[in-house]
């Protein structure tokens, strides 16, 4: 019987096993919805747990409630006390810190570890070297916390967390073998815990990033593909998207742009994600389109990202998307327009104090000037970038200025070519992570 052009429940039950043969059940949202709900129900009826008649106590255990509340209370108290302790530790020199911990064994608490890791998180991008230093201190405290004071799993998880964040801080400064060793220790700590798969997956994501840098692509992809369903099971949509995007980045590094593009487009279209994640995916999709020589699609993708970043008032991200368009214009052979945009973007990065991007955008502008046969302007561009680095007074200013001086000299002598620009570009990629790196002049 058909009511108001929808199947009734009776008909839909009859269709449960063969709905795909019925065109209406396939195309009608209402009927498809009821069918899905019936399938959920019959699926559950096939599960043994539904028919398990053993009674289970429905009364919450007072012991559990009290234990959990006591743990939460103690952790809060520890966190509150940790603020002052960490301030004292951070104001001391690295050598004095160990002595202070030795003198004050009561400072070795989970709260202090958490507070130190907060500092690591804050410093990872602004002062990576300091972050790595503090992460070592966090590990030292975590490893020496009096284990008997805490439930076994909580202490092992605390240590795993400290090692994982140390692994990340080390990865960020390019110390990959040390970082992998820290992540190995993370996994060791987690192995004994009852609930560990989520933390294991998170450490795995860091490991995948390192493997990408080390060009161990197959291992990176395998780890990401194991971690993704874990995040999914834990309802962590953001990390599912991060896993997808990371997979896309590994594929980009492998120059498998079509596959990477599919992933970034999917993330960008996922309405359940926050707008920033989606806009970042649009930028990554733009890069893949450009590499695949789909220039119109690349520009459209970057333009959509710009609109989103405008709305979110994320100025630096917006500048990055504009930079992407400049790169597309360059690949299209529209060098003059590319140069105009690159000059604007470079100025934006300069205003924002994003020195690494100032350098790289300058080098892209140098590429355009080289093609336009204006070497004198390359020399001028390098000169102005050198001024910027001198004023910025960064840890790696001197090395950056040396590299730029090398380019300026080549431009003055008329020996500048794209290989020399690439050489400097590769140097700038590593420099912020290894500020003491010396520039090697190429022949």
């Amino acid at each position, binding site marked *: 019987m058909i009511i108001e052009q929808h199947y009734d*429940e009776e008909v839909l039950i009859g269709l449960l096993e063969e709905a795909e043969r019925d065109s209406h059940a396939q195309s009608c949202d209402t009927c498809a919805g009821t069918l899905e709900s019936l399938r959920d*129900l019959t699926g559950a009826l096939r599960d043994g747990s539904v028919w398990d008649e053993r009674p289970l106590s429905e009364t919450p255990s007072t012991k559990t409630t009290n234990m959990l509340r006591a743990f939460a209370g103690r952790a*809060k108290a520890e966190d509150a006390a940790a603020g002052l302790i960490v301030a004292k530790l951070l104001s001391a020199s690295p050598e004095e810190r160990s002595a202070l911990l030795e003198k004050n064994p009561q400072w070795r608490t989970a709260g202090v570890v958490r507070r130190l890791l907060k500092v690591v998180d804050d410093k990872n991008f602004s002062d990576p070297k300091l972050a790595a230093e503090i992460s070592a201190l966090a590990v030292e405290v975590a490893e020496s916390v009096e284990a008997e004071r805490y439930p076994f799993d909580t202490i092992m998880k605390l240590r795993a967390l400290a090692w994982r964040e140390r692994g990340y801080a080390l990865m960020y400064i390019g110390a990959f073998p040390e970082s992998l060793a820290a992540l190995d220790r993370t996994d060791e700590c987690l192995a004994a815990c009852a609930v560990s798969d989520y933390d294991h997956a998170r450490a795995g994501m860091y490991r995948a990033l390192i493997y990408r840098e080390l060009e161990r692509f197959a291992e990176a992809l395998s780890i990401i593909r194991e971690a993704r369903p874990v995040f999914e099971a*834990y309802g962590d949509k953001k990390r599912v998207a991060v896993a997808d995007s990371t997979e896309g980045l590994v594929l980009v590094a492998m120059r498998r742009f079509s596959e990477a593009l599919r992933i970034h487009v999917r993330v960008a279209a996922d309405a359940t994600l926050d707008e920033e994640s989606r806009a970042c995916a649009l930028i990554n999709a733009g890069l893949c389109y450009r590499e695949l020589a789909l220039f119109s699609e690349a520009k459209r993708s970057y333009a959509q990202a710009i609109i989103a970043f405008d709305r979110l008032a994320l100025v630096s991200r917006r500048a*990055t998307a504009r930079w992407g368009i400049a790169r597309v214009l360059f690949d299209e052979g529209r060098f003059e327009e590319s140069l105009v945009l690159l000059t604007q973007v470079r100025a934006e990065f300069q205003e924002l104090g994003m020195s690494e991007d100032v350098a790289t955008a300058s080098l892209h502008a140098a590429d355009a000037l080289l093609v336009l046969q204006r070497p004198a302007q390359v020399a001028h561009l390098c000169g102005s970038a050198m001024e910027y680095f001198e004023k910025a007074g960064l840890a790696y200013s001197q090395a950056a200025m040396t590299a730029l001086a090398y380019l300026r000299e080549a431009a003055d002598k008329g020996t500048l070519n794209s290989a020399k620009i690439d050489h400097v570009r590769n140097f700038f990629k590593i420099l912020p992570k290894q500020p003491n790196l010396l520039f090697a002049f190429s022949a």
Partner: protein
Amino acid sequence: MSDPNVLEVNPGVPEVVLEGSVLTQTPDVGVLYEQYRDLLMHVACRKFRVPEPDGENLMQEVFLAYMQSEAKVENTKAWLVAAMCNASRHYWRTQARTESLPEDIHDHSDPMTHGLADRFAVMLTLRQALKYLQPRCRETLYLHYFEGRSAMDVARELDTTNRYAEKLIHNCLKRVREIYFSITSVKRPS
């Protein structure tokens, strides 16, 4: 990296080690425990066949892990259910060192499925709904859906005609669905 324009959506970026911590966010972990206890006990004891006293111990591990999670938890129910699956599997792995595993353990360890928490919640509510069914209806659904018997087999078992058995299967399914919705409309499964 082949291009500096690639935006790294870095797993390290959004971590906020302390502000996002469940330790500082949970209003009262005791309330949360009471809210999710039935569902989590169902997962541990019925789905994974963990003995009840051990199930309660696993519950403590799960909530301690939840409180220690330094990143913001997006979906508490999904998080807790997935953690309980993990803890239950770990339980059996440890038990396997001293005694043999239940034969059907593999049927009970499939936590890597999308929407797992919701599926367990459906099962928990369905158990309740089945209690309100007539015994004959319960038996019909048990034979057809759980034991996988055909309508003809069900007819033989219940000593009735094939046609009536088919009708019974349909009607009982409709009835249990009706009861299921009447339960969830009063109190949605958490």
